[in-house]
C-alpha cells in the first residue's frame, strides 16, 4: 500500500481543473485509492497509465457535463424535489436542440464558409490524432514489463583510453556486478544476433538473442507456454531456447505440444522450452528466438572482450547516480579478480559505468522526433483555430444586424452566445469526424514511413484513447474559435454599436483579427524554419561521400546447408561457383560478396597483432573486419589506393593475404608503406598465422551518413590459412546491374537450380538501404514539411481574409478617394503595405520564436546549425512573399472599385 510514488502530478492537476469544486476532493481521493491498489497488483507503470486514461475520461466527461449544466443553468445545488427542476431543464433541452437546428440551417446556407471551416479543422485534428496514436503506442507505454521504471541498461565509457564513446561491457563486468552490486535486484546479459533457423521444411535467417537465464528474471517476463531458462540451465549449459509468439504461430501453427521439440538455430540443435507472450518484444519486435547462452567458466574469463549488453533491475528507490557509483567501485576491482594485460588495466583505470533507464535506451532515439512532430502538428492546430476564429469574427460582423435585431427583440446575451456556440460545436464535430477519417488513413502511411527499429509500431491504431483525444481537441477548438468571438459580439456595448450603419464599429474587430494573423504568421514561420533546417540537413547528408556507390546494386544473402559444406574451403567453393553463375545473368556487370554488408550489418571486431605490438611497442588494437570475395570492391566502387585487390587464388588455403582500408593502414603502420607488412588475426603466434597486406583501399562509412570518421577496416579473403581457420557461411552478395531493382526473380530461379536447400533472404537494393539510413531525418522532414506547408497556406488564407474584409469595409472611403483622382496603383500599394505591415510584425515575432525553439532539432541536424542565418533569411523571405501575394488579390479588387457604383449602393 505504501512506498509507491503518487499519481502523475500533471494528470492530478488536469483533474483538479476539470472537476467541479463540489466533486473534486472526493473523486481525486477515490482515484488515488484505486491507483494505489493497482500499483500493488499490476506495478507502478501500469497504474500510472491507468491513471492517465481515467484522467482523460474524467476530464472529457466532466467538461461536457459542466457545459451542459452551465447552459441549463443547473448549479451544484442539491434540489430536494426533482419535480421542481424538470420543466426548466426540459425547456433548456428544447432551446438547445432548437439552437442546433437553426445553426445547422445557417451553416448549410453558407456552404463555402462551412466547408472551409470544417476542412481546416479536419486537417488539423486529423494530423494531431494520427501523430497522437503513434506517440501513445511508442512513447507513453513502451515497455510492458512489471515495474519497468526500475530496469536499467548498464554501459561504460573510458575517456582517455583507446576506446572512443560508449561501449557495452564484457562478461567479467556481468559476473562482478551480479555478485557484488547489492543495489541491483537482478542482472541479465545478452547479445543480439542474426542466424539461420531450420525446422522441417522451413528455413530462414531470424533475429535472435543470446541471453543469460537471468535476463528473463530481470525483466520479470513470463512465458505463455512452457518455462523460461533457469540458473540450472546456465550451469549445465543445456542447449535450450524460447521462441516468440510470432514464430510459434507462423512456423508451428501455434502447436500446444511445442515444448520439448527441437530444431536447428544458430548452428546447433536446440530444444524449445517455452513460448513468449505476444507482448514480449525484447529488445525489439523482430526477435524470434532467445537462445540460452552463458559463460563457459566464470573463473577463467579472459577479460576485455566487450560488447555484451547488460540489463539490471535496481532495488526500489535506487537512483541511477548512486548505482553508478557502486558499479564504479566494483569495476575498479576487476583486474584484481580476473587478471588481464596492461591495456586492460588502463581501460579499467579510465572506465566509468553509464546507467540509463531501459526505456530511454530503447525509445530515446525516436522519442525526440516524435515529440517534435507532435508539437508541430499542435502548432498547426492552433493556426487552424486562429483561421477559423478569423472567419467567425468576419461572419459575426456580417451578421451584426441580425444579432442586433435579435437583441432588440429580447434575446438575452446567453441566447446570443448559445447560437454562436451551437455553430462552433457543429463545425467542430464535423471537423472531428473528418479528422478521424484522415487519421485512420494517415496512420498506416505513418507506420510505413517510420524509421526501422521503432518499438510497438505494430500496435499503433486509432483506439478509444485516440478518439477521446480527438473529441477533446474538437471541444477545445470550438471554445477557441467559437466562444471568444461569441462572447465579444454579444457584449451589450458591441450590440449598441451594431445598430449604427455598417462600417465604423469594427475597429476592435480589426485589432483582434490582425493579432490573430500576426500569431499565425509567426507560428507558420517557426515551422518553415524548422522544415528548412531539416531539408538542409537531408541535403548535406545525401552529399556525404560514403566511399562506395549505392546506385544499381542488388544484394541478397543465402544460407546454404549441405553435408559436404563443413569447412572454409568447401564453403568458398560453393560461393565461388555461385558468384560465377550470377555473373552469367544478362545485364550483370560485376558480382562480389561480403560477410557484413555496409548500411545493413555491423562488422565483427577482433584483436589484431602486428610485428610492432608483438615487440611490445603497443597493445594489439581491436579493429573491425569482414570477409570479401569476387569483384566486391569493383561492384561497390570502393577505390583501390595501392597494391592489388583479392584474386581467386587468395581464396584458396594457404594464401594468407589481407587488404586494409586507408585509415587501418594509418592506424597500424603510421607513415609507413603497408604493402608487404604482416598482421595476425588474433594474438597467439602459435595458432594465428601471419597475413600479408597485398592492397590498400579507400575508407568507407559503413554504418551510415552520420558516421563522423570512417572505421579502420581489415578485409580478409574467403578462406583462412588453414581449412578451419574461419568459415564464411552466409555472406551478402552484391550484384551491379542496371536492372538492380528487378533482379530478385532471376536470382531466385538460379538459386533453385544451384542450391535448392538454401534460403534467400535480406533482399534489398543498396539504394533502399541508403534510404533506410536516412529515414529518421527524412521521416521528420516529411512530417514537418507537410505541417509547415499547411501552416503557410492557412497563414496566407488568414491574411487574405482580413484584408478582403477591411477592403469591403472601406469600399466607400476608397471610392471617394478614387473619385477625387487617386491612382489605382496608389490604392493597390496602400492595401499591400497594410498587409505587409501585419506580415512583417508576424515574421519578426516568428524569427524570435524560431531562434528560441530550433535548438530542439539540434540532434537531427547535420552540416547546418540550429541558427543558420541563410535558412532564417530564406524562410522569412518566403513567408513575406506569400503574404504580399495574399494581399495582392484584395488590393487588386480595391483598385477596381467603381466609385459611382460604390457610392450609389450605400
Amino acid at each position, binding site marked *: *500500500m505504501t512506498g509507491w510514488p503518487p499519481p502523475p502530478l500533471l494528470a492530478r492537476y488536469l483533474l483538479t481543473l476539470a472537476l*467541479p469544486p463540489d*466533486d473534486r*476532493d*472526493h*473523486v481525486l*481521493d*477515490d*482515484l488515488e*485509492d*484505486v491507483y494505489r491498489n493497482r500499483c500493488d497488483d499490476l506495478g507502478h507503470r501500469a497504474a500510472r497509465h491507468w491513471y492517465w486514461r*481515467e484522467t482523460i*475520461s*474524467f476530464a*472529457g*466527461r*466532466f467538461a461536457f*457535463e459542466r457545459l451542459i449544466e452551465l447552459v441549463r443553468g*443547473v448549479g*451544484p*445545488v*442539491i*434540489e*430536494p*424535489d*426533482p*419535480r421542481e*427542476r*424538470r420543466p426548466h431543464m426540459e425547456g433548456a433541452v428544447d432551446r438547445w436542440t432548437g439552437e442546433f437546428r437553426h445553426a445547422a440551417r445557417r451553416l448549410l446556407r453558407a456552404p463555402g464558409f462551412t466547408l472551409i471551416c470544417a476542412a481546416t479543422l479536419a486537417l488539423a485534428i486529423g494530423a494531431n490524432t494520427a501523430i497522437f496514436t503513434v506517440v501513445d503506442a511508442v512513447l507513453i507505454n513502451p515497455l510492458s514489463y512489471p515495474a519497468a521504471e526500475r530496469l536499467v541498461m548498464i554501459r561504460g565509457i573510458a575517456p582517455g583510453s583507446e576506446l572512443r564513446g560508449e561501449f557495452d561491457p564484457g562478461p567479467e563486468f556481468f559476473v562482478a556486478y551480479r555478485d557484488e552490486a547489492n543495489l541491483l535486484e537482478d542482472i541479465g546479459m545478452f547479445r543480439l544476433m542474426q542466424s539461420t533457423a531450420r525446422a522441417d521444411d522451413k528455413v530462414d535467417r531470424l533475429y535472435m538473442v543470446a541471453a543469460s537465464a537471468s535476463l528473463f528474471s530481470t525483466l520479470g517476463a513470463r512465458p505463455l507456454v512452457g518455462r523460461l531458462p533457469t540458473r540450472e540451465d546456465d550451469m549445465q549449459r543445456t542447449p535450450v531456447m524460447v521462441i516468440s509468439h510470432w514464430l510459434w504461430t507462423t512456423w508451428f501453427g501455434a502447436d500446444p505440444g511445442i515444448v520439448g521439440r527441437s530444431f536447428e538455430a544458430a548452428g546447433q540443435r536446440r530444444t524449445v522450452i517455452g513460448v513468449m507472450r505476444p507482448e514480449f518484444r525484447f529488445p525489439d519486435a523482430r526477435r524470434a528466438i532467445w537462445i540460452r547462452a552463458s559463460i563457459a567458466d566464470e573463473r577463467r574469463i579472459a577479460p576485455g572482450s566487450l560488447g555484451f549488453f547488460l540489463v539490471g533491475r535496481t532495488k526500489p528507490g535506487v537512483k541511477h547516480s548512486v548505482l553508478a557509483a557502486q558499479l564504479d567501485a566494483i569495476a575498479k576491482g576487476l583486474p584484481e579478480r580476473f587478471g588481464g594485460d596492461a591495456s586492460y588495466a588502463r581501460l579499467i583505470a579510465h572506465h566509468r559505468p553509464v546507467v540509463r533507464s531501459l526505456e530511454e535506451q530503447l525509445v530515446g532515439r525516436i522519442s525526440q522526433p516524435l515529440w517534435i512532430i507532435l508539437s508541430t502538428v499542435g502548432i498547426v492546430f492552433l493556426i487552424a483555430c486562429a483561421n477559423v476564429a478569423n472567419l467567425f469574427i468576419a461572419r459575426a460582423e456580417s451578421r451584426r444586424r441580425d444579432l442586433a435585431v435579435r437583441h432588440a427583440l429580447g434575446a438575452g446575451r446567453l441566447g446570443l452566445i448559445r447560437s454562436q456556440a451551437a455553430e462552433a460545436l457543429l463545425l467542430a464535430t464535423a471537423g472531428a469526424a473528418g479528422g478521424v477519417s484522415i487519421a485512420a488513413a494517415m496512420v498506416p502511411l505513418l507506420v510505413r514511413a517510420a524509421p526501422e527499429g521503432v518499438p510497438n509500431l505494430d500496435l499503433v491504431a486509432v483506439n478509444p484513447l485516440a478518439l477521446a483525444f480527438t473529441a477533446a481537441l474538437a471541444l477545445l477548438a470550438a471554445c477557441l474559435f467559437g466562444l471568444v468571438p461569441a462572447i465579444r459580439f454579444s457584449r451589450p456595448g458591441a450590440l449598441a454599436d451594431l445598430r449604427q450603419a455598417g462600417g465604423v464599429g469594427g475597429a476592435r474587430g480589426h485589432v483582434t483579427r490582425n493579432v490573430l494573423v500576426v500569431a499565425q504568421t509567426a507560428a507558420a514561420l517557426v515551422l518553415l524554419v524548422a522544415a528548412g533546417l531539416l531539408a538542409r540537413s537531408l541535403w548535406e547528408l545525401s552529399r556525404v561521400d560514403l566511399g562506395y556507390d549505392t546506385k544499381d546494386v542488388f544484394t541478397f544473402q543465402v544460407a546454404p546447408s549441405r553435408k559436404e559444406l563443413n569447412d572454409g574451403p568447401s564453403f568458398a567453393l560453393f560461393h565461388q561457383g555461385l558468384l560465377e553463375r550470377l555473373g552469367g545473368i544478362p545485364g550483370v556487370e560485376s558480382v562480389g560478396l561480403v560477410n557484413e554488408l555496409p548500411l545493413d550489418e555491423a562488422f565483427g571486431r577482433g584483436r589484431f597483432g602486428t610485428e610492432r605490438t608483438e615487440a611490445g611497442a603497443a597493445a594489439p588494437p581491436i579493429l573491425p573486419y569482414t570477409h570479401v570475395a569476387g569483384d566486391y570492391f569493383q561492384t561497390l566502387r570502393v577505390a583501390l589506393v595501392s597494391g592489388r585487390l583479392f584474386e581467386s587464388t587468395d581464396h584458396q588455403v594457404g594464401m594468407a593475404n589481407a587488404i586494409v582500408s586507408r585509415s587501418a593502414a594509418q592506424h597500424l603502420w603510421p607513415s609507413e608503406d603497408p604493402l608487404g607488412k604482416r598482421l595476425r588475426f588474433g594474438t597467439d603466434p602459435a595458432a594465428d598465422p601471419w597475413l600479408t597486406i597485398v592492397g590498400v583501399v579507400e575508407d568507407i562509412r559503413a554504418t551510415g551518413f552520420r558516421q563522423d570518421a570512417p572505421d579502420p577496416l581489415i578485409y580478409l579473403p574467403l578462406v583462412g590459412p588453414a581449412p578451419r581457420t574461419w568459415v564464411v557461411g552466409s555472406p551478402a552478395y552484391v550484384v551491379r546491374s542496371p536492372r538492380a531493382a528487378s533482379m530478385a526473380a532471376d536470382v531466385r530461379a538460379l538459386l533453385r537450380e544451384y542450391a535448392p536447400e538454401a534460403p534467400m533472404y535480406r533482399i534489398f537494393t543498396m539504394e533502399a538501404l541508403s534510404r533506410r539510413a536516412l529515414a529518421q531525418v527524412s521521416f521528420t522532414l516529411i512530417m514537418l514539411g507537410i505541417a509547415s506547408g499547411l501552416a503557410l497556406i492557412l497563414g496566407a488564407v488568414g491574411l487574405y481574409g482580413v484584408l478582403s474584409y477591411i477592403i469591403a469595409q472601406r469600399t466607400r472611403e476608397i471610392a471617394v478617394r478614387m473619385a477625387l483622382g487617386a491612382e489605382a496603383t496608389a490604392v493597390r500599394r496602400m492595401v499591400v503595405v497594410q498587409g505587409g505591415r501585419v506580415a512583417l510584425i508576424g515574421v519578426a515575432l516568428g524569427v524570435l520564436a524560431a531562434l528560441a525553439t530550433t535548438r530542439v532539432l539540434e540532434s537531427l541536424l547535420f552540416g547546418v546549425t540550429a541558427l543558420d542565418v541563410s535558412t532564417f533569411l530564406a524562410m522569412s523571405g518566403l513567408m513575406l512573399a506569400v503574404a504580399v501575394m495574399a494581399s495582392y488579390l484584395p488590393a487588386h479588387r480595391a483598385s477596381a472599385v467603381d466609385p459611382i457604383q460604390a457610392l450609389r449602393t450605400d
Partner: protein
Amino acid sequence: MSREALGEFEQLVLLAIIRLTTATDAGDVYGVPIVEEIEARTRRKVSRAAVYIALRRLEHKGLVATWMGAPTQERGGKSRRCVKVTRTGIQMLRESRQALNEMWRGLDPRPEKIR
C-alpha cells in the same frame, strides 16, 4: 407520464448503492465499490467517470443523498463521500421497474417469433 423516467445506467447505479447498503458486511458506500459492484454483477466494464457523473445528476435530482463519512486510516485521515438512495430514489426505481414489467407482460420475445 409526466416525470422523466430513469435511464438504464442510472438504475444500475441506484441498484448498486442499495445492494451495497443492505449487504451484511456493509462498509462505506462510495464511488469505488459502486463501480466494482456494477462491473461484477453486469460483467461489463463501466466508465468510472460515467458513474461519478450519474451520481452527480442523481444528487441534483434528489434521488441520492451524500455526506462525508468518518475519516479512514488508509486515506491518511481523510474521509470518503458516502452515498445512499433517498425515498424519492427508491420510489422512482419502483416506477421504472413497474413500467418495464408492464411492457414485458405476456411477451416471450424468442427470435423466431419476431419479424
